[in-house]
């Protein structure tokens, strides 16, 4: 029901203050790589941008024994090494480190949570953190529920009071969120025993990337693109997330998961929803996420034999990547020498809605590819009449809009232009916008944006429970079909563009993969 309360006239023209309210930030898994490489550098950069309140407190929780001092020293080294802004600003670090502390304990032990509670209450009293907390679970999926339960049992997860400026308790959960629909649904159900949905922030760091958010701005902040953004003008869409690295010693994990569950279920489907969604009625959390869920529900499910014709799974074999010989997946440590786990997947997806009916979305993700690249390419239909056909048209492709997510972040619009000279020869050229040249090389990291949003209570860029479940609902039958039909795994040489079977997936319909 629309609100009848008039808007606040004093807010008119007031810029959105993107600073966090007084609170504490607790990282479970404080000894892990994510904390050192991403979380603490992100907090430091937020401090440097004056986005954190004075008195802001950060507590690390992990099993390893450490003192406050040794934790602070360790984090200082991590920030010095991994912060995007260097050298370390002593004033900003000093302010941040005053509130930095460590609680040692097992995630299963009740004492850990009692100790944590005591530290947080001391912080409330000494540093005015107002009883508000954000708990960041940088832990393995198996630790999520025990931690939430432990926090709840000592009263650290009160349900929202409804007071606009009252204390809050929020929990940020890293991917993977479940390993299939059943486990994700069960996890949601269990979490809801202790938390309101509004307190759960399921993080997908892809959504924090400036370039991903800019897809929304490009589409809905400009009139010229959205008018063409439909089945009448778009022939097909490609979404690529390619990595040149392998599994980096995570053989055990990868054997269980594979790239479909590791990357496609979250990053690629999130990119797809942002490209395909309808304009939200407002930039508020539920309006945006409602539209994304509608896309996920409209994706035609692939089951049984359809999986074999519309999905290609591949696995890298020995090859050369960036000049160095790379082992095949089956030669990696902790990997079964006869493994059929996929390190590459390509899919042809159809979205059965008014806007996209009949427009294929080709998505692919791969490890040990020839280069690292993530991008979305929207290919437009050819002109209805080829005025410059025949020999002149040779080598030309359709217009395309390429949104480069990483690296070399930017947007390119490709179109044909006349080659100077007496004839009417044409050549494809590109109008290229690069973030680096427009805004400088140091854009905020995705984690900065997402942590600040969690502190401020804005879940727009976090995944909602129904969204996660809809993603699994699409992925589960594909994984099941591979298993049931013993689907082939196409091998591709490391350092290449992927298996030939993936090329054939497009060639059958007259298209070719872009080479980013």
């Amino acid at each position, binding site marked *: 029901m629309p609100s009848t309360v008039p808007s606040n006239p*004093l807010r008119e023209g007031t810029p959105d203050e993107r600073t966090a309210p007084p609170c504490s930030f607790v990282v479970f898994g404080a000894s892990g790589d994510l904390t050192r490489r991403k979380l603490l550098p992100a907090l430091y950069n937020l401090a440097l941008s004056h986005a954190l309140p004075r008195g802001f407190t950060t507590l690390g929780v992990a099993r390893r024994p450490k003192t406050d001092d040794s934790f602070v020293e360790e984090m200082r080294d991590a920030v010095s090494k991994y912060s995007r802004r260097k050298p370390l600003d002593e004033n900003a670090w000093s302010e941040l480190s005053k509130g930095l502390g460590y609680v040692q304990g097992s995630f299963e032990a009740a004492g850990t949570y009692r100790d944590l509670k005591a530290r947080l209450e001391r912080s409330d009293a000494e540093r005015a953190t107002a009883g508000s907390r954000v708990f960041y679970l940088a832990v393995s999926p198996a630790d999520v529920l025990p931690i939430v339960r432990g926090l709840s049992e000592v009263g650290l997860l009160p349900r929202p009071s409804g007071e606009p400026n009252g204390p809050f308790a929020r929990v940020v959960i890293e991917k993977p969120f479940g390993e299939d629909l059943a486990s994700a649904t069960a996890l949601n159900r269990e979490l809801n025993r202790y938390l309101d949905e509004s307190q759960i922030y399921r993080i997908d760091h892809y959504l924090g990337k400036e370039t991903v958010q800019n897809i929304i701005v490009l589409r809905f902040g400009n009139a010229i693109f959205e008018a063409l953004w439909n089945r009448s003008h778009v022939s097909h869409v490609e979404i690529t997330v390619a990595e040149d690295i392998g599994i980096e010693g995570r053989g055990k994990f990868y054997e269980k998961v594979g790239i479909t569950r590791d990357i496609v279920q979250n990053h690629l489907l999130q990119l797809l929803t942002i490209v395909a969604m309808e304009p939200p009625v407002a930039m508020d959390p539920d309006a945006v996420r409602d539209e994304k869920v509608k896309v996920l529900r409209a994706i035609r499910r692939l089951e049984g034999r359809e999986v074999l014709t519309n999905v290609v799974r591949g696995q890298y074999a020995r090859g050369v990547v960036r000049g160095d010989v790379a082992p095949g997946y089956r030669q990696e440590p902790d990997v079964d020498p006869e493994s059929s786990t996929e390190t590459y997947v390509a899919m042809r997806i159809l979205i059965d809605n008014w806007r996209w009916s009949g427009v294929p979305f080709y998505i692919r993700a791969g490890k040990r590819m020839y280069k690292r690249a993530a991008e979305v390419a929207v290919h437009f239909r050819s002109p209805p009449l080829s005025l410059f056909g025949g020999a002149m048209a040779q080598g030309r492709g359709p217009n395309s809009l390429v949104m480069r997510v990483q690296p070399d972040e930017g947007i390119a619009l490709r179109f044909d232009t006349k080659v100077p000279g007496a004839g009417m020869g044409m050549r494809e050229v590109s109008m290229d916008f690069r973030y*680096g040249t427009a805004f400088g090389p140091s854009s905020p990291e995705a984690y900065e944006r997402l942590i600040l949003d969690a502190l401020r209570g804005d879940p727009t860029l976090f995944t909602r429970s129904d969204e996660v479940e809809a993603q699994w609902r699409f992925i589960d039958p594909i994984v099941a079909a591979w298993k049931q039909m013993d689907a082939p795994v196409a091998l591709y040489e490391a350092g290449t563009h992927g298996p030939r079977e993936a090329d054939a997936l497009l060639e059958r319909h007259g298209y070719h993969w872009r080479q980013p």
Partner: protein
Amino acid sequence: LTSHESGKLSEALSHVEHELAAIWAPDEGGPPKARVCTANLVVVASGSRRAGAVALVDQLQTADVARTFLVSLDPKLPPWAMSTEVSARCQKDGEGLLCSERIDLSLGAATVPRAASVVSSLCVAEVPTVVLLLEAAPAILTAALIRDAARLVVDSDIIGLDAVTALARGTHAHIVDLAWERLLPIRNQIAACFDDERLRASVTAIRKLTITTTTTEGGAPAPHARLLVGWLASRLGWRLVSETSAFDPLHGAIEIELAWVLRGEHRPGALVSVELEALLGDASVHLAISCDPASGTLHVVRSAEGVGVETSTLTGAPQPASELVDRAVAEPLRDAATRQALFAAAGYPPGQVVVPHASASTIH
């Protein structure tokens, strides 16, 4: 970095263009260079304040990606001479360099009327031009520079509120007043008092406003107090009747009290507290914000019938000028209320003699 001094402006201009071209000439064996430029930033300062301006521009260049001009008057130069310096600041970006250019123009007295022509011919096309006036500059220079500007950044704490509104009336450029930006935390707290839907209607029923500042030279109302009164008047439809009263067509008279405390170590006219009372029917709202001018800390107490008492302390350091300017240059223009607030503030207290002044203090 290169420098040049010429008595003929077109020669000096050609020299600058030549130097800019040299910056971008391919450097055999060197890393590829790309220009980073989202705006032309024209900073105007007098010769006597040039050192401070140079320091500010140095800071701005670390954050802003603009072709930056520092335009200053240099009384030591021959009247028809213009001295130029061209440099580029580069940062590594992968294998290459991202660079933004800076052009320093020191003007002899007689070249001032033509300086804007030099600047405009050197501006990068297709990006907005932002003019930052660090102090009152000769009108002939200012008028020409702001003619094509998309944004004009000024500081009413330095050049005076009336000078700012006079400039605002003469341009369609968006005005960013740094003094107004400094008031943002307090404006936010006043607005936040009425974000609560239960109290929303009370915003139109403010009955009393008390603003306390440190004493000012000559006892004139402090610019920050005038800006706050102007903002509330423009947003809530008040007619400013006198220094001590305003009139709201719906709810009648509003009492305004400007109070003073001794300055001590603080600067003149620094905001010390803001209090307001609203009364809608039988329901009253009282908001008290006290400010520590040294630390920037705000202590906020809101009490409202049926809602209770809420207190909060917001800590924060005063923002340096470079950060405020950086925000003014880089962030989207959202503050549509600025112009209306400035004009309303210029009319407060009603009937005062408007004398634009340039009693510059230090840039802070």
